[in-house]
């Protein structure tokens, strides 16, 4: 963990949507934090509430129908309770977003230059000339060739990977302290994906930003993350240092996620079963219906309290809680999970360099 105050601290974040079929809870009491200069990855299957969680931070999701509760402290200020105009001053200027699909995330009617400089024009008192110079520099920095001549091109004149580079330039134009990247590489092919990740990594060193990175791809996590947050059905299952968790995944869900990865010796198959209905989540642990270690205690009451099983590594599982028996969870492939403190027996997990 960091010393002093974290850059972003999310506590008990809950986002609900009122729909025709009743209230839908997309994010349910989530805690995590991001420090300056570190990369935190939110992992989970599609539909587990990762995107909604990140978009709740600066209230990008539409309210109503959405309703956001809890606290989101950014540099000590609670973003959920400050007035809208102040929040707008933070968005795009201090906290920037990159979205999954660069194709759709850009307005097809404006030049990329216009769209990159828009945030500058809104937040900072700059002349058109200065804005243009800065945007061209950034386009150059993110790897667009002939940046100054491409400034006046329209999004459809760029390829998918180039569009995502433009999106990154658009996000960085206000020199943000926190970058929220929502699956920025999912829509791209693998080679481009690697380039974009590398670019983000370089830019992070250069700008000293905190990055909150959403992905369902554990390969990407291994490449960039400092810490990870594993989400399932709107709840955090496990969070902690990436090396600790990859070495010693304690929650059955984390274990199964890792098992899916061929490079971690997994079978490559999916986790059996599907996500629960968000209108009517199961009692007890959200993952219980798909968990091979689920017992009666897992299926009653609320999601179990998070337990710190190692410094900085928190897990929400009945078996680690009071009265639980961690040895129930078999960790054939990941060492003896029950044996807290000794998580070194696994040689299959590769080093998570970043």
């Amino acid at each position: 963990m960091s010393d002093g105050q974290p850059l972003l601290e999310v506590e008990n974040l809950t986002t609900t949507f009122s729909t025709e079929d009743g209230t839908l809870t997309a994010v349910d009491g989530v805690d995590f934090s991001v420090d300056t200069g570190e990369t935190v990855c939110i992992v989970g299957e599609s539909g587990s509430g990762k995107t909604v969680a990140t978009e709740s931070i600066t209230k990008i999701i539409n309210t109503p129908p959405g309703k956001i509760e809890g606290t989101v402290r950014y540099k000590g200020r609670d973003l959920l309770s400050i007035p809208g105009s102040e929040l707008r001053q933070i968005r795009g200027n201090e906290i920037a977003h990159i979205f999954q699909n660069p194709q759709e995330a850009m307005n097809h009617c404006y030049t990329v230059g216009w769209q990159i400089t828009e945030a500058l024009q809104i937040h900072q008192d700059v002349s058109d000339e200065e804005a243009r110079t800065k945007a061209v520099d950034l386009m150059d920095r993110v790897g667009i060739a002939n940046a100054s001549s491409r400034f006046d091109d329209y999004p459809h004149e760029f390829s998918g990977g180039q569009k995502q580079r433009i999106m990154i330039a658009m996000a960085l134009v206000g020199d943000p302290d926190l970058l929220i990247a929502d699956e920025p590489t999912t829509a791209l092919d693998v080679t481009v994906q690697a380039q974009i990740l590398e670019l983000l990594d370089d830019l992070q060193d250069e700008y000293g930003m905190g990055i909150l990175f959403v992905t369902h791809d554990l390969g990407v996590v291994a490449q960039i993350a400092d810490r990870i947050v594993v989400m399932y059905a709107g709840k955090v299952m496990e969070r902690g240092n990436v090396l600790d968790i990859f070495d010693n995944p304690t929650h059955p869900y984390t274990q199964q996620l890792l098992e899916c990865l061929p490079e971690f010796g997994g079978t490559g198959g999916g986790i059996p079963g599907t996500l629960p209905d968000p209108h009517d989540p199961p009692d007890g642990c959200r993952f219980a219906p798909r968990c091979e270690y689920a017992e009666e205690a897992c299926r009653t009451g609320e999601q179990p309290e998070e337990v710190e099983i190692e410094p900085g590594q928190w897990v929400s599982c009945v078996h680690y809680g009071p009265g639980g028996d961690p040895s129930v969870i078999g960790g054939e492939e990941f060492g003896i999970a029950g044996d807290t403190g000794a998580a070194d027996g696994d040689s299959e997990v590769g080093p998570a360099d970043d």
Partner: protein
Amino acid sequence: MGFGRYVTARVLWAGVVSLIITTITFLLLSAAPNPDVQRAATQAALQGGDPAEAVERARELRGLDEPLYVRYFDFVQGVYTLDWGWSSSRSQPVIEAVGNALYYTAQYSIPWTILTVILGPLVGVYSAANMYSWRDHAATGFAFFGYAIPNFFFGIILLLIFGVWLEVIPIVYNTDVAVFSVENAIQLAIPVFVLVTGSIGAVMRVSRNESAEFQNADFMKTAKAKGVSPLRAYAYHVMRPTLVPLSTTLVGQLLALFLGSSLLVEVVFGIPGLGRLTFEALLSQDTNLVLGTTLFFTFVAVVGNLIEDLVFTVLDPRISYDDR
């Protein structure tokens, strides 16, 4: 390739269309017995003369004894050199009569067009932003009312209410008042209102439905994440893409009303514009004037369609000129 070539091709095509319509007009005219010639024959018969001889003379006078192709070339040349003949009922050249009438038509057409172009998209986008609220329902109701009520009928009713019963507007259009005067504004208010009601409905519906799609687009999320205020987001990110499909509806609606209903509205309100000129030419059997006014409206249609195409292409950056 290139915008210039595209525009050139489009303009040439518009020229071809106008020529085709001119040709059809000529064929229509030459296939039927000329009303003027018939009148001459009737007159001769009534006065005890020889109808056949009168017909011969009348045909000669109008050059109808020439071969068809000669008459066709003369006709086409006349149309394109703006030599549209002499209006017998108004005792002036047709082109001059059209010019005079245009002065009055423009006085209500310009405010009508401006109001439709500004209000239609604004109300539509506002409606989409407040979807399913009572404001949205009210706007939708107004839109349906506007394009369902026949303009001439609506005009008659408003004239009855405001002109006859309340006496706030003059019943007879006064041509003596200055163009930019309160009196002129008052007497044109109801005709402009009637026409705006007619043209704005479809514009509102289309802009509402299109912007409903854009306001939930991903790029709106991007804009929000940049810290764009809701007002700016609607003004730039929703309105601008909405204008692309809307341009077609906008020009189309204005054109359709201009070519149909404005004629009726002029007749109802007694505005001595192009519509009324056409109507009076029909009543007084003034062939040259009928031809001149219909050709004028036809060319407006051709130019309007051209503008519609060009505006659409200019507005949508994704259109490549090779495709069309």
